[in-house]
């Protein structure tokens, strides 16, 4: 069959999500943020929530998320997204409210806001991209940085005696009574990205139905911070990140009931 017979609108099975703007994303080549943006844009469209969604953007590389996904957004100060989302959701209880946060945002400067929003059981979805590093500011150590991992501020590798242990904040959040769903996913393969999409869908449904706080952690790569190619970053992530941050559900109130 000739290419021009195949490339025909009737045969289209995958297109650029309608809710992704035409802007070129500023992310580095291969950055996981782009894949997660795409999934969120697809889901909001498929769930018919474009007019009913308010995202809360972080400080970190995803600070310009509002330029890429065509829904309403507010921009939080660094780490404060769950506090801002609390206000947005309480004032607009019928809206789909979600935060989008990096590991530095959620588990360093924003730890208090995150834990207390989740402990209050705010009806929001928290989308958390864990790339184990501060990407935006040039690859410094984050609380999530692995033991031995080299960063700009741990040039000889993270030392537990000096820097403490890597923080698995989703595991902590799963212990809180306010969370209904906590899961850890990835987007490095098509199969993983499909599962991540179902997880984010469930989190959005929970937020709409008022079931409490949902947290979807996406273990992702930061090839610039890690100083590896995007392909090598995926391999490094599978080999190293998944041991400390294993994929799968940490809490699913539906199933437990």
């Amino acid at each position, binding site marked *: *069959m000739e*290419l021009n*017979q*195949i*490339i*025909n609108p009737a*045969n*289209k*099975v*995958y*297109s*650029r*999500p309608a809710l*992704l703007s035409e802007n*070129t*994303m500023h*992310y*580095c*080549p*291969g*950055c*996981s*943020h*782009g*894949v997660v943006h*795409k999934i969120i844009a697809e889901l909001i469209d498929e769930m018919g929530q474009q007019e009913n969604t308010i995202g809360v953007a972080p400080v970190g590389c995803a600070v310009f998320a509002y330029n890429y996904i065509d829904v309403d957004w507010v921009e939080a100060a660094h780490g404060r997204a769950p506090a801002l989302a609390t206000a947005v959701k309480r004032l607009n209880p019928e809206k789909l409210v979600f935060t989008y946060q990096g590991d530095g945002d959620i588990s360093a400067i924003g730890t208090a806001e995150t834990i207390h929003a989740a402990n209050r059981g705010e009806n929001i979805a928290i989308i958390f991209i864990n790339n184990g590093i501060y990407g935006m500011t040039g690859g410094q150590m984050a609380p999530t940085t692995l033991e031995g991992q080299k960063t700009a501020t741990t040039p000889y590798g993270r030392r537990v005696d000096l820097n403490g242990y890597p923080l698995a904040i989703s595991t902590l959040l799963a212990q809180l009574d306010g969370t209904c769903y906590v899961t850890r996913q990835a*987007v*490095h*393969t*098509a199969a993983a*990205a*499909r599962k991540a999409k179902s997880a984010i869908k469930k989190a959005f449904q929970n937020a709409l139905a008022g079931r409490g706080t949902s947290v979807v952690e996406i273990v992702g790569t930061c090839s610039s911070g890690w100083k590896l*190619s*995007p*392909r090598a970053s*995926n391999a490094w992530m599978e080999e190293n990140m998944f041991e400390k941050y294993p994929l799968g559900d940490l809490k699913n109130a539906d199933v437990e009931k």
Partner: protein
Amino acid sequence: MAKVHGAVVIDEERCKGCDLCVAACPTKVLLLKDKEVNNRGYHYAYMAQPEACIGCSSCAIVCPDACIEVYRVVEK
């Protein structure tokens, strides 16, 4: 037996040459251009072996910049 034909259309100017689609393709359809670059200077992805495409969308799903459209025909 039904035969599946696939094809992708890549937005070459949007592509950042990250190589993740190349890695994701189960039938080794895609490669990055060896010499040519787009306006941003990236070696963009292209169908090096179009006849092997099965339209599975794996490349499009992992593409961080949403550059890939996928087409699929099942010939009975």
